[in-house]
């Protein structure tokens, strides 16, 4: 690189930083664009492909090569900020070991085959299974990383075309409990608040969320808000002293799995000290407990009585959190506006839905909801778990945009939109994720397609899952895997189809604050790779030809994802999600839009369920003209009142015991994302954390004679992993923590994890299982 070019790049880098530091002001952004005019590089607006923050990025490309990345300072919420992972996307896209040819397993080895042969074989296997064993003999397992149009297409094909609800995806492993919490409390899924709330809050309650590493851009916004507002208090509730806890005024560290008592006790203190909001409660809440499988109204008085069992002293006995800390947390929570942010620590639990309900309870009883800075807010871990899977209903128990499988009217409505044969959509939910892989192992599922995800590494209790996918046996099911790289799943699949990724295809991602954003195609996929959309559209057409899907159901209707987006918008029309106004043209021009957004001149919705903001309260079946501006109404809940749930404070499925005396919790590190399939391809990120590690508290390490670097055998009732120790005062005594991003078979921690799941959300308990440790 010559000096002139180098100086130019340095100026561009400094200008980009200045633009971000200025908080995304349009004037500075324009100045930036002028200062880095570079005839050699074309810059295109896009969105990051990693977590659910949805950071706006600018991709610098020259021909078919992506050569630079920067944050997009014009992005309304992330304002140019991105984390290290995003900046390595060019390397990840251009990695040399991308899958480029369809591969078929023959005699135990993969051989390259032509697309025509691959697609015909896939369609043939599925069609034969459906004809011989019925629609429920096939299954789809998708991803919160697929584009919205891809997930919607697959949901449409399987539920409305083939006629099976065996439609699942990896959001079942990360966000199902959050969805269950929203639905049971407010009647509909998805957060009602937005990122702007961070800037208005006086208290931020981070629960089971290592925001510093897993959502670093949001963490910086919290830091910035804290520097701007000296009254802002951060409370962290997490059994592990994660990096996020470093900024907390108060860190509550419950015994893993025993935090439900803490939430109840905080509610007890808030009401005892008159920090609740009787007027808000009277207008907006109802109080329920489950008895004999039925919800029973108990009223506010019943709730107060229920909470008598949760004095801080009693809660301390159950949770291990000192009573005075619970008192302090309740006091800080009452210094509203209060925003709670949570992720997997609350969700990946057998009590995940209940934990979410109790989180909402605190906001409802204090009226800390629906106002700037006051909201419960779950963050998602994938770029499109919200928009792509939860919203499109690409799970076994739901239909698009808040519709229910159980309601005949909803099924008929979707059959009409999709053009299905009447009666095709079944009312009975399909198999959820854990059951689906069990059924695959029992050969009840005969053919399965896995798209943009890596269950051969990411599922809990991994041995039976890997056997289900890949173990040779009589009548072994046929498993097709679409991916961009070789993974622990592709290695055991029967047919591997090379897929395009991110900047090689055009589609929509919907992130945590309901913002839908377009990522455009910038380059061609490598080799023969095709977008998942193209592959599944091709597959759908072939199933029509083979007589297992109605003729013309998909064929000829859609050429590309733009066409599909129009049907998707139509499917949202008239629902509380209504985003008819989020047209493709607007998405190309604007930095995303938050639903609901019913018309093309609507600006999108910052806060749902609030008069003057949520368009559902202005027109349509939920309209209420008696409300004052800024007043809340939970119109989607039964009787239009949010439910404060009285839930038992139960613990984890597998507590520590004499034989397995430690609790294992799993999570991530900043540099790596999920199963590491992508981030391990960037040498710089891989070297930052080349090997897995097990954090252990110094007290336990001392007692066991363990030093940092010692190899430890971690054993549960399900499996073993061998990982080096890191002695550090982060997990509490009795707990060990292991990130799950490494694919090395010896250190794959998911062999050890439990597949017990929440009875409501069916989400597995990745955060807690009992293990024993042995130095080897």
């Amino acid at each position: 690189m010559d000096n002139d070019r180098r100086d130019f790049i340095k100026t561009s880098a400094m200008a980009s930083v200045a633009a971000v530091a200025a908080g995304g002001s349009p004037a500075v952004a324009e100045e930036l664009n002028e200062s880095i005019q570079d005839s050699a590089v074309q810059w295109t607006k896009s969105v990051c492909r990693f977590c659910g923050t949805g950071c706006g990025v600018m991709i610098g490309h020259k021909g078919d090569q992506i050569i630079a990345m920067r944050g997009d300072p014009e992005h309304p919420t992330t304002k140019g900020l991105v984390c290290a992972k995003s900046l390595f996307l060019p390397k990840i896209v251009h990695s040399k070991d991308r899958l480029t040819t369809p591969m078929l397993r023959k005699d135990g080895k993969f051989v390259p085959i032509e697309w025509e042969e691959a697609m015909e074989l896939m369609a043939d296997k599925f069609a034969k299974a459906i004809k011989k064993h019925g629609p429920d003999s096939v299954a789809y397992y998708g991803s919160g990383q697929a584009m919205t149009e891809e997930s919607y297409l697959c949901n449409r094909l399987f539920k409305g075309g083939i006629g099976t609800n065996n439609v699942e995806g990896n959001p079942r492993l990360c966000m199902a409990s959050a969805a269950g919490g929203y639905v049971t409390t407010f009647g509909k899924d998805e957060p009602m608040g937005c990122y702007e709330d961070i800037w208005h809050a006086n208290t931020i309650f981070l629960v089971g969320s290592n925001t510093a590493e897993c959502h670093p851009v949001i963490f910086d916004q919290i830091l910035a808000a804290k520097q701007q507002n000296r009254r802002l208090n951060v409370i962290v509730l997490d059994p592990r002293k994660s990096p996020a806890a470093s900024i907390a005024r108060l860190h509550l560290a419950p015994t893993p799995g025993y935090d439900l008592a803490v939430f109840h006790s905080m509610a007890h203190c808030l009401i005892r000290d008159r920090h609740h909001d009787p007027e808000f409660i009277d207008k907006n809440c109802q109080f329920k407990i489950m008895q004999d499988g039925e919800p029973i109204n108990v009223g506010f008085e019943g709730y107060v009585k229920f909470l008598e069992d949760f004095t801080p002293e009693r809660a301390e006995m159950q949770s291990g959190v000192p009573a005075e800390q619970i008192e302090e947390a309740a006091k800080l929570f009452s210094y509203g506006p209060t925003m709670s942010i949570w992720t997997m620590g609350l969700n990946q639990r057998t009590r995940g839905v209940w934990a979410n309900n109790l989180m909402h309870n605190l906001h409802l009883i204090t009226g800390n909801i629906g106002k700037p800075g006051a909201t419960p807010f779950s963050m998602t871990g994938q770029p499109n778990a919200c928009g792509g899977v939860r919203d499109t209903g690409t799970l076994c128990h739901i239909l698009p945009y808040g519709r229910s499988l159980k309601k005949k009217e909803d099924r008929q409505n979707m059959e009409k939109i999709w053009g299905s044969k009447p009666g095709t959509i079944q009312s009975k939910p399909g198999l959820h994720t854990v059951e689906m892989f069990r059924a695959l192992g029992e050969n009840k599922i005969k053919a399965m397609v896995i798209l943009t995800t890596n269950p051969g590494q990411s599922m809990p209790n991994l041995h039976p899952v890997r056997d289900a996918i890949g173990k040779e046996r009589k009548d072994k099911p046929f498993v097709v895997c679409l991916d961009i790289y070789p993974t622990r799943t592709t290695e055991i699949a029967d047919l591997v189809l090379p897929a395009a990724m991110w900047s090689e295809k055009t589609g929509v991602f919907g992130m945590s604050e309901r913002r839908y954003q377009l990522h455009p195609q910038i380059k061609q996929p490598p080799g023969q790779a095709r977008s998942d959309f193209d592959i599944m559209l091709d597959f759908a057409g072939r199933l029509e030809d083979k007589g297992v899907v109605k003729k013309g159901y998909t064929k000829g209707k859609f050429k590309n994802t733009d066409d599909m987006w129009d049907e998707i918008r139509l499917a949202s029309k008239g629902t509380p999600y209504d985003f008819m106004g989020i047209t493709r043209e607007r998405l190309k021009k604007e930095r995303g839009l938050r639903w609901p957004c019913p018309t093309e001149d609507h600006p999108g919705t910052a806060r749902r369920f609030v008069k003057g903001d949520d368009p559902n309260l202005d027109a349509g079946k939920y309209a209420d003209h008696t409300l004052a501006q800024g007043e809340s109404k939970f119109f989607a809940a039964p009787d239009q009142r949010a439910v404060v749930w009285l839930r038992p404070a139960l613990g984890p499925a597998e507590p520590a015991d004499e034989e397995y005396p430690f609790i294992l919790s799993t999570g991530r590190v900043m540099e790596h994302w999920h199963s590491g399939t992508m981030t391990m391809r960037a040498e710089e990120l891989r070297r930052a954390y080349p090997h897995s590690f097990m954090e252990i508290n110094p007290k336990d390490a001392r007692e066991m004679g363990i030093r940092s670097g010692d190899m430890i055998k971690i054993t549960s009732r399900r499996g073993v992993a061998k990982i080096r120790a890191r002695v550090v005062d982060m997990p509490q005594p009795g707990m060990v923590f292991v990130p799950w991003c490494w694919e090395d078979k010896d250190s794959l921690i998911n062999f050890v994890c439990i597949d017990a799941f929440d009875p409501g959300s069916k989400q597995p308990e990745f955060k807690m299982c009992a293990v024993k440790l042995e130095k080897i």
Partner: protein
Amino acid sequence: MAIVGAFARIESDLISSCQSALEEIAGVSIFDIEDPDKLGVLVEADSLNEAHSTITTTIRTTPGVLGVWPVYVNTEDEQVHN
């Protein structure tokens, strides 16, 4: 050759001492930006790996640095080599 533009968020009381410490790091230039709680950081290194290592191990651990967020990276040379 790798060039990374980043900003470091600094504890408000430690801006000046932090700036001095960061300026001592080889390959790192510090520049002022509008926000008083942040410093602009330009890292020049022989490889992206080295630049990343400077950010994660040296800059991030400097007393007073609350976090470092790279917002621009140029991999032009490395793409050409690919």
